[in-house]
């Protein structure tokens, strides 16, 4: 560890450097790390690579100067918190010595080891960390495209879509039907659709008690299922209905004009339709050649280096992480391991075998939290669960524990956003 004084001096120098135009940075003497994507994975990686070795020139490429976090955005939909509580910027990352480029990355040349920005600038890298997140597959559900999403929001990328869904719920008359279409695995935030159904039910029970939520699911099982279903039976017996795949829950097509969701058995007409479509790693991952035919990115479970393209690491929702789910906690944990590995590799060292933790909080009601946790180690080329560890909140836990977990959920959000953006 550096002494306090030298660290402070470094920060001053680094802040000045962060203001220089990009070409000047590209010529600096230390190794160069470029990070694509400024979400929980990418912003964490940029920060921790710089912290691991201040001599490394780190550039973070992100299209949007304002980050809108998905975790807790179901609370925004239910009217429990404002969207601005979800929003963060990258100023502190800049202060920490990370160079910020607010442009989309449009190309990666793995041979020349450069990333091209939409403005035409090429950034050279020694190691590239890709954390581009997911793209919604507009070809994944017939009838559901970007235009349909303006009528039947996905709200699976937080921001305007989140507010659109909230406005539609507010405008809905009492007695209305909200339909949530949940996708098959894998997708971003496995418990997310069910937390959303819960908090929408909470809103309906409070404000529009004759209304209900129907979940049309492409699966027969989901994350924290028994915990959710027990809580629904206790809190929302008249407000939530879950239709599993085997009960005809799979939606095959949608019609935006009439807000109709079509399954093999029925046409469900919704007053508010929230369609969460199939997903894949974002387009830049496909462009860079790090995604396989599944649409996701296979990686080494020690360094998170791509199994397809050398010197490119992939972390967060875009990557195939074995047993580790696509969550913000996972993304941040992977980023810290990846950052240390990248610094080790650039210093000619071997990265040690990591252990990773995931913790996912879900709110069933504002004072009712449940969790799933896991601890992971590399095994047979992927991250595997450490047996005997992890699992969900006890099914018979007293209500005080649910209240505690709801408080810890709030604490988690403040902590992780503080670590990444604070």
């Amino acid at each position, binding site marked *: *560890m550096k002494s306090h004084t030298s660290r402070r001096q470094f920060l001053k120098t680094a802040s000045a450097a962060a203001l220089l135009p990009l070409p000047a940075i590209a010529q600096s003497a230390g190794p160069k790390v470029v990070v694509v994507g400024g979400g929980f994975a990418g912003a964490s990686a940029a920060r*921790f690579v710089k912290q*691991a070795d201040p001599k490394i020139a780190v550039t973070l490429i992100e299209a949007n100067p304002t980050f809108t976090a998905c975790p807790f955005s179901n609370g925004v939909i239910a009217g429990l918190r404002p969207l601005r509580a979800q929003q963060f910027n990258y100023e502190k990352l800049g202060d920490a010595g990370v160079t910020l480029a607010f442009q989309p990355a449009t190309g990666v040349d793995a041979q020349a080891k450069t990333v091209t920005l939409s403005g035409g600038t090429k950034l050279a890298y020694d190691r590239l960390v890709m954390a581009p997140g997911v793209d919604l597959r507009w070809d994944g559900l017939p009838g559901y495209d970007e235009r349909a999403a303006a009528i039947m929001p996905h709200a699976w990328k937080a921001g305007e879509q989140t507010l659109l869904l909230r406005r539609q719920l507010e405008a809905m008359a009492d007695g209305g039907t909200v339909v949530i279409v949940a996708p098959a695995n894998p997708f971003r935030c496995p418990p997310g659709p069910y937390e959303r159904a819960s908090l929408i039910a909470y809103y309906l029970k409070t404000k529009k008690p004759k209304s209900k939520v129907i979940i049309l699911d492409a699966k027969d099982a989901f994350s924290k299922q028994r915990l959710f279903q027990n809580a629904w039976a206790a809190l929302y017996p008249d407000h939530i209905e879950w239709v599993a795949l085997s009960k005809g829950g799979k939606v095959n097509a949608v019609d935006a004009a009439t807000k109709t969701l079509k399954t093999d058995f029925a046409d469900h007409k919704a007053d508010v339709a929230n369609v969460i479509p199939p997903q894949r790693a974002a387009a830049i991952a496909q462009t860079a050649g790090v995604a396989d035919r599944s649409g996701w990115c296979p990686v080494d479970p020690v360094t998170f280096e791509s199994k397809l393209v050398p010197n490119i690491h992939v972390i967060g929702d875009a990557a195939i992480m074995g047993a580790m789910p696509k969550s913000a*906690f996972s993304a*941040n*944990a992977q980023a*810290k*391991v990846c950052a*240390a590995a990248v610094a*080790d590799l650039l210093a000619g060292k071997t990265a*040690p*075998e*990591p*252990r*990773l*933790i995931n*913790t996912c909080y879900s709110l069933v009601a504002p004072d009712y939290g449940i*969790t799933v*946790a*896991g*601890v992971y180690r590399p095994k047979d080329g992927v991250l595997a669960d*450490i047996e*005997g*560890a*992890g*699992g969900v*909140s006890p099914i018979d*836990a007293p209500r005080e*524990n649910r209240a*505690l*977990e709801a*408080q*810890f959920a*709030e*604490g*988690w959000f*403040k*902590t*992780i956003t*503080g*670590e990444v953006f*604070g």
Partner: protein
Amino acid sequence: MTGMRLTAALAFALAMTAGAQAAEAPAGAASCSGCHAANSRVDTPVPPLAGRPAADIATAMAEYKSGARKGTIMDRIAKGFSDVETQAIAAWYAQQK
């Protein structure tokens, strides 16, 4: 493990890791700060780890693992680490500010 034996094992492990104190976090340590804030200004009921005595952290983990201490989530997480891994993490956090 009895309290005495735990304490002795801890003292030994801590002496070992203190001697080989590296800047790099031991396996698993990086994940903790997702919930245990590294920045003390964060308003959260989850206690910080940085700067706490290593024995406190390692004892808490051992008790979560055995079930002697009730937790909401740490009981499930503690079971994923061996005593040696936990002690290395505890020693590292004790050194952080």
